[in-house]
């Protein structure tokens, strides 16, 4: 009854369950920047956990003027909408809401930790300071103290604090986090480089009878400038066998991953390619995790790539 005794609490519960039931496979996601979810979740979570902990029974003692309530609602609405205009604003709004939730959680813990006193002797309890704008005679310390389970207050308060910190952290971690910025171009250059290596290897076999590949290195120009572009970023590793008959190129995740536990929210592609012309890929959550040799093939060098590479390489070979 304490939990479901008001329309607002029911609404909060409905909102909470809506968020729980949203499937991740939607083509669309919430309006606003991609990191707006913590901002959206913060206030419903605060309301829900306050209700679960019985905090509203105490908060109801605090009589606020209609003017204060209206101003507060307007400010929250403006902040809420502001957060959907830009990723940076979303982070700020999440932090503001998060601080409010954190304060609420700590207050619930304090309320729960204090020994409950009978309503008639509640003159000095709790020592909560009155809200700005609230008249002193209506402060919590001068109201009869309702009977609320202490363990519920403390548990919900701790949970609310943890949730607030977790959501605030997610806003800080993912704002301006675009790890896949170079992935498209790097894979395209890798494919071109593989085609060049295959053409070079075939030419070597015709000339020497053995297939050897061109050992790429930083600073190359001409037909091998793809390797220069690839090696420019520090996330590409190249392994050649001593006799240059085999090679493996790895494209590791470019961007560093967010700290635990947020790294489980995201992943990046780790690629592997060799003289077969096949590019393999797995999604990983460690920056230095290499793609295993049995990973799925996601791309292959095609005849058209070979033709293009021959056009690029033949003039160079003629010069040699």
């Amino acid at each position, binding site marked *: 009854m304490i939990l479901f005794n008001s*329309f607002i609490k029911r609404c909060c519960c409905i909102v909470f369950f*809506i968020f729980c039931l949203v499937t991740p496979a939607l*083509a669309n996601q919430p309006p606003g920047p991609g990191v707006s979810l913590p901002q959206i979740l913060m206030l419903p979570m605060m309301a829900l956990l306050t209700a679960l902990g019985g905090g509203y029974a105490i908060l109801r003692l605090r009589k606020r003027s209609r003017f204060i309530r209206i101003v507060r609602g307007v400010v929250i609405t403006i902040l809420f909408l502001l957060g959907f205009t830009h990723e940076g604003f979303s982070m700020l709004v999440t932090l503001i809401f998060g601080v409010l939730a954190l304060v609420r959680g700590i207050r619930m813990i304090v309320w729960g930790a204090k020994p409950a006193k009978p309503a008639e002797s509640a003159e000095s309890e709790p020592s909560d300071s009155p809200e700005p704008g609230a008249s002193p005679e209506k402060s919590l310390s001068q109201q009869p103290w309702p009977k609320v389970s202490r363990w519920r207050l403390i548990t919900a308060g701790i949970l609310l604090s943890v949730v607030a910190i977790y959501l605030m952290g997610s806003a800080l971690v993912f704002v301006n986090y675009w790890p896949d910025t170079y992935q498209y171009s790097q894979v395209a250059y890798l494919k071109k480089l593989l085609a060049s290596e295959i053409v070079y290897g075939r030419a070597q076999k015709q000339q020497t009878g053995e297939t050897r590949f061109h050992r790429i290195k930083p600073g190359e120009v001409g037909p091998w400038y793809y390797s220069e572009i690839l090696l420019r970023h520090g996330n590409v590793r190249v392994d050649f066998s001593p006799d240059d008959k085999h090679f493996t190129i790895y494209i590791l995740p470019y961007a560093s991953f967010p700290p635990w536990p947020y790294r489980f929210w995201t992943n990046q592609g780790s690629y592997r390619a060799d003289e077969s012309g096949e590019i393999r890929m797995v*999604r990983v959550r460690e920056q230095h995790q290499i793609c295993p040799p049995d990973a799925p093939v996601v791309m292959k060098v095609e005849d058209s790539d070979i033709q293009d590479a021959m056009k690029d390489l033949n003039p160079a070979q003629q010069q040699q």
Partner: protein
Amino acid sequence: MALPKSRIPVGLLALFLLVAASLLSGWLPAARFEREQINIQVHPDHIVVDGVYFYRNPYPFPIVQGLSIPLPADDLHPLPAQLEAEELWPRPQAFLLRNLLGQARFDLPLRAREAVCLRVHYYQQAPNSDARYILTTTRPWMRPLQSGEYWLVPQGVTLLRSNYPLRTMPGGRGVAVFQQTQFMPDQDWIFSWRAQ
């Protein structure tokens, strides 16, 4: 549910917040998804997908619509590679992508009452000579597509089957298409082919 008179404004506010929360949770998208034109080049062992999508902001104020790209991958179809998203008009630009909660995502800003056209491109291996294009993600947009065009362009293959009836273009070297208006798909597009 009896609500005291003093609580009615608060209840109405809560109801408003509930609707807003539904909107913001993605159940009621802010932008409108109006049209799409999908062009799939079918090669013997892979497909290259180019999707052109039209969105509109129906509101007199700017919005940012977060979008995720649903990719059809399973045990027999590896994850697509070379995923790319760009705005074609009115402001041509490439979108930065990030993978969050298992989906590639980006943000699409729309000015007041603005229509935006964007393109998504990817390459996917198809070792079993079949593929799937996800259409059912239109449903969360709550409105049917005004129109949709779906093209298959064979590149050295012969098309075998499609769960949506295809019309072969005369003189089009096997190019096949299906078109729909007021389209709210209840199944994805699955098609197969064999190498010539």
